[in-house]
């Protein structure tokens, strides 16, 4: 059971898919290595936040996900 990445908003366009599985464990550098090109650059940017299993990370570099975890990649919200 891998780590599931969920791409929200325009990140899903950059990824070309809404979700992607990657093998765990996964830290911040491992995540960036799994996301090439413009997608990786966008995720690296200050405006994109991460949530692991529904909890926001205060510091993306502190990412430490394991198999079965869900990482949401969150660009700025549009609001309702």
């Amino acid at each position, binding site marked *: 059971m891998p780590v599931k990445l969920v791409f929200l908003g*325009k990140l899903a366009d950059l990824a070309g898919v809404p979700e992607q599985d990657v093998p765990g464990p996964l830290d911040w550098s491992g995540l960036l290595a799994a996301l090439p090109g413009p997608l990786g650059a966008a995720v690296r940017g200050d405006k994109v936040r991460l949530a692991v*299993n529904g909890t926001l990370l205060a510091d993306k570099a502190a990412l430490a996900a394991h198999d079965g975890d*869900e990482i949401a990649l969150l*660009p700025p919200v549009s609001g*309702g």
Partner: protein
Amino acid sequence: MTAFSAAHPEAGGIVSFVGKVRPDDEVEALELKHYAPLTLKGMDELADAVLARWPLDGVLLHHRTGTMKPGDPIVLVAAAARHRRDAFEAADFAMDHLKSDAWFWKREKRADGWHWIEPRSQDHADLARWSE
């Protein structure tokens, strides 16, 4: 709304807001996405914050997701209170928060394709009113 009103017989007044996808001749469709683990938790927290800030008999927050057309209803907020001032302020507050800092991502379909939407500066100005 009829059920919400009936559920709060003790309330002196109920304020409701229905928001529609803004009519715009150039927009063919609006798609609104959410991420349930954050969006639903955020709306629960918003409802709790509203109930903590005003003496209400009840509050209702409902938001559609998926693909909608201009003119379609997209959001419903209602607040029931003994005093109408509380109900007005609570509904206004809830809408300002839903519009600017709720976990939704939306994009519009125009003649040249889909475009992601950023929050309007007016939405942030509306929100700032409540932290004075």
